[in-house]
């Protein structure tokens, strides 16, 4: 299976790339299967993700998934971000080749890790 047009669009023109100075939450996760790295930076206002940016060292799918993930949670609440799954991201992208599904874990993992740490530090209940 090839990359869908939407994957290619996010890969060629990734949204929300870079980092946020003075981010409220940061998480970095590495991919055990192929050694790739995704880092997410979040700016949080109250319980809302005001801004989100990412840095990714990885394949086309990893970059597209990172980009798509940031688009899907920007402006959403922390709990909504926690509810986002890798399958939803992959679906939004029109699907991923099976061997690339693990790349979509990375972005969701980084996002969830950042959000959870922030909630814990700020005494916000996850549910």
């Amino acid at each position, binding site marked *: 299976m090839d990359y869908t047009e939407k994957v290619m669009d996010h890969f060629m023109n990734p949204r929300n790339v870079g980092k946020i100075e003075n981010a409220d939450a940061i998480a970095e996760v590495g991919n055990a299967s192929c050694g*790739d790295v995704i880092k997410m930076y979040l700016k949080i206002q109250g319980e809302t993700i005001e801004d989100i940016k990412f840095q990714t*060292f990885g394949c086309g799918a990893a970059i597209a998934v990172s980009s798509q993930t940031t688009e899907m949670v920007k402006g959403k609440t922390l709990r909504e971000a926690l509810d986002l799954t890798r399958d939803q991201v992959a679906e939004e992208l029109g699907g991923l080749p099976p061997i690339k599904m693990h790349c979509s874990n990375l972005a969701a993992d980084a996002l969830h890790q950042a959000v959870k740490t922030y909630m814990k530090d700020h005494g916000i209940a996850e549910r």
Partner: protein
Amino acid sequence: MERIYLDYNATTPVRAEVRDAVLPFLNDLFGNPSSRHLEGRQVKTKIEAARAQVATAIGAEPERIVFNAGATEGNVTILRGYQVNYKEKKGRDHIIISAVEHPCIYDTAKKMAGEGYAVTFVPVDGEGNIDLDGLKKAITERTGLISVMAVNNETGVIYPVKEIAKIAREKGILFHTDAAQAIGKMPFDVKDIDADFVTMSAHKFYAPKGIGALYIKKGKRLDPLLTGGHQEANRRAGTENVVGMIAMGRALELATGELATDRERIGKIRDEFERRILAEVPHSRRNGGADNRLYTTSNISFRFVEGEAVQLKLDHFGIAVSTGSACSSGTLDPSHVVMAMCNGDEETAHSSIRFSFGKYSKMEEIGYVVDRVKEVVAQLRSFSPLYDKFLSSQGK
């Protein structure tokens, strides 16, 4: 947009002269070479002429050439044939291969290791050169076969097969070389090298895919993988790939006549490309020593970016290259070749791109390719967490 194909080590287009040579065999000359009637005999004569063309190109007698389906078949035939023909007879259950062999050798040898064989993988140094002392030391009384490729497909590094054949011969060990990347691109004489077995693949020199050949030295036995009919003097059963054989013979004849001019012309393009890339893209490194490399290949790692992403972007800009990155392999394993050269440093393999040049490469294309590579690598670095880390470690 016109494409720029820089993946000649993967495969080459079929050249016009070769296409012309096979057309009659897609029309009137359809006979089965094993048939005794005129239709068969006509074709038989032609495939024997093709066999002679292949033989002449590598300094062999025609009867030493066995056509097959390509390098994978050739290489697996050697390793598996060795198991059948030699081990039981001499108790020699140890084989030696280099750590940078093509997967069809590498993985088959690994399988054999799981089947009770002893297999030594001889390492290479940072420039991709084989550790000859290590190879000599690995030899034991049980060693029966050494297999080292003539030219590495990923880096273009040339291996001293003549020397290795000599080492093997002195110890009564069989020597095989996978010459898929060498034959048709550099002078290659089986008698001078004194190899027992040589693997060839025709689609690397402008013939179609699915045809190759083995050279088997006189007096050496090798049971076929495919048994059945008496084709190829009982050395490979199955109705002949007539079109492939005709194509391979013609293509190799042409290639052999053009070795010197290709080397000169393609080598200049490769050298200029590599000089500019290494000078103009920061944190790029060449995989493989500067010398002792085939003139067709340039394997470069661009630190902090992943190879599949680079490949995909270049493809978008009309440039075809390949990568040793784990992300682009079907198994998510990085190239064992590049890994072997950089002490298992995964990041170097991860970010490696192979540019391979050939007959239709043009010097005028180089500027465009270099510019796109610069642009793509810079863009991917702009959001690479590894690059960011590197910059902060430099205090930037």
